[in-house]
């Protein structure tokens, strides 16, 4: 037989009336309705809300990853002169085209770009929605909350100080540092396997030249491209090193390539570029800058 109870007056009429009566007492006598009266009071938005952008000028390195990743092409790099920082390039946003996906904030390698909880962005003029870097500048916004991007301590190499003593490779408990010779330079450079690295920091402690420093690096959610040098084409002009926003390219001399000058003396040796991939943010500016096709970077538009 049918196990369901037949609905009776109590279940159909009186119980619902009890429920609504309780609700009425709760909203009319004991408290207030759930509504947020918007213009007078605002909803307490969570930090992950994606509103207007905020840019920390001091953290931003001007790499332009945000410009590259933006699916709507609504960001651009603008040349700005700052009394403190000098001539720099910083991104601007066109809010009229922005779809607030938050990729720019996620791809930022130094977490200088944030999305604030400000959502009242309407304007009667389309031009006012084009925000220059100075409009979205907010150097102190990052301090107002706890950053949730994953970060880890990794040793970062300053190649100009390194003399290739191999002490770091000997100290590493995970055996993740290997001294690799740099082609044509006669020097060695520690290659750090960041996948295996457990942030013990022994390499930085033992380094006699203080070339390795433990630095907090934010994990990237994106698979960034890496530059590769084609040594035969490199003329050693150093344009890529000047263009690199994260100073990951070092120009090293190649001994044995000195030309003999007319007066019999030897000239300066040729130079070549060396990449320190722990520092690289994958922006592709070196690839775009190189005039001799000496850098290959698959996945970056020229």
């Amino acid at each position, binding site marked *: 037989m049918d196990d369901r109870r037949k609905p009776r007056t109590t279940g159909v*009429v009186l119980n619902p*009336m009890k429920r*609504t009566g309780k*609700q*009425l007492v709760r909203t*009319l006598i004991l408290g207030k*309705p759930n*509504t947020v009266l918007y213009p007078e009071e605002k909803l307490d938005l969570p930090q992950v809300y994606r509103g207007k952008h905020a840019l920390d000028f001091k953290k931003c390195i001007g790499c332009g990853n945000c410009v590259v990743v933006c699916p709507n092409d609504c960001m651009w790099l603008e040349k700005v002169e700052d009394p403190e920082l000098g001539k720099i390039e910083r991104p601007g946003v066109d809010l009229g085209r922005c779809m607030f996906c938050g990729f720019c904030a996620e791809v930022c390698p130094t977490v200088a770009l944030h999305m604030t909880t400000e959502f009242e962005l309407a304007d009667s003029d389309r031009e006012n929605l084009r925000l220059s870097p100075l409009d979205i500048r907010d150097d102190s916004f990052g301090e107002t909350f706890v950053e949730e991007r994953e970060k880890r301590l990794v040793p970062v190499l300053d190649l100009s100080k390194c003399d290739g003593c191999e002490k770091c490779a000997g100290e590493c408990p995970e055996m993740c540092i290997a001294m690799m010779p740099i082609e044509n330079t006669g020097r060695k450079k520690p290659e750090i396997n960041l996948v295996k690295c457990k942030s013990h920091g022994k390499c930085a402690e033992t380094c006699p030249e203080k070339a390795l420093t433990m630095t907090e690096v934010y994990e990237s959610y994106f698979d960034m491209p890496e530059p590769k040098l084609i040594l035969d084409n490199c003329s050693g002009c150093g344009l890529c090193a000047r263009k690199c926003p994260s100073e990951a390219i070092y120009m090293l001399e190649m001994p044995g390539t000195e030309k003999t000058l007319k007066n019999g003396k030897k000239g300066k040796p040729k130079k070549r570029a060396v990449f320190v991939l722990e520092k690289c943010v994958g922006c592709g500016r070196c690839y775009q800058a190189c005039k001799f096709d000496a850098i290959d970077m698959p996945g970056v538009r020229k």
Partner: protein
Amino acid sequence: MNLYQFCYGIVHWLVGLVNNIWYWLGDFLPWYFGDLFTAIGNFAASEGHLWFMTLLVESVVVVVIALINVLNFLWIFRKLSGRILDFYGPYYVGYRIGGWLQNLADGMKLFIKEIIVPTKADRLGFLLAPVIFVGSSLTILAVIPFSVDFGISTSESGEYVSAGALFALAAFSIAPFAILLAGWSSNNKYTLIGGMRSAAQMMSYEIPLILCAASVFLLAGSFNFVEIVDAQSGIWFFIPLFIGFVVFLICLMAEVEIIPFDLPEAEAELVEGWTTEYGGMRFGLFYMTTAVRSYAGGALATALFLGGWHGPSFLPDEIWFLIKAYIVFTVFMWLTWSVPRIRIDQMLVFGWRRLLPLAVLNLLIAAALKSGGWF
């Protein structure tokens, strides 16, 4: 002093005032015009004309009071539904009086909208249906007095319409005809289904409603509202006739067509039911008239079962009457926002298998009480 005498005094004073100016104007005119002026002035001061004007003023008073009450009712309706459904309801228009002016603002907005008649609609019926609906609903209020002194009476002595309750019930049940007319003439499937449902629904609730009212007439021994209320000076009829009271309230909800019984305008199934093709102030009139009918229904339940204007004497009788009508309306609204709408077949089964036997039982109880000599 009852309402008739009060209005008669006003009319008398006004006619005297106007006549003074009128005769004074007539003095400036040649004799043949002056005689005509005097004749018109004499007619205006005659007893028959004064009686007629008094009736008009009385109706205006009743309609104005009804419309103010309608504003209150709509406000209670929106506010209460808001609180039950966890939002504020009207808030900003008339901020200090709880958003009371919102309905006035909505009415003004509806007034400036265009009146659209569908091309293939039956034009006469389409335009006539709202008139019948609104007119019949306002006619109910003509016979319901707020107190012995406050109501449209037929004569100077304060006698009321002798079969007022019957007239109110009859005027109440004209509405399904208007709804059917509107549904048919709109030439739309939704409106037609709505109108037909209204007629089918009337089959189920009208008979229990009349039977419950009949039990009250049996106990009171009169169709006159004043005598019915006077019969309740000892004990209100909803105590001995409790079954009848509940059945009457349920049938009244069906009569007023509010949510558990709003089959003719079932928003979920028929777009807006029989009002689908109506826009602008016609829709506003339907909306308003639902409140008028709620008000009339509350007043009817109050007069028949809740002791009318009887109550402790620290408040005037009229206020007691209104308080009771408002309480009935509030209970209606509470029920409206608690229960879902019933189906049309459930409505018929409910009406014929549940309400009708209960109403007959209630009538038997009333007959037993009457023949037992308690009333």
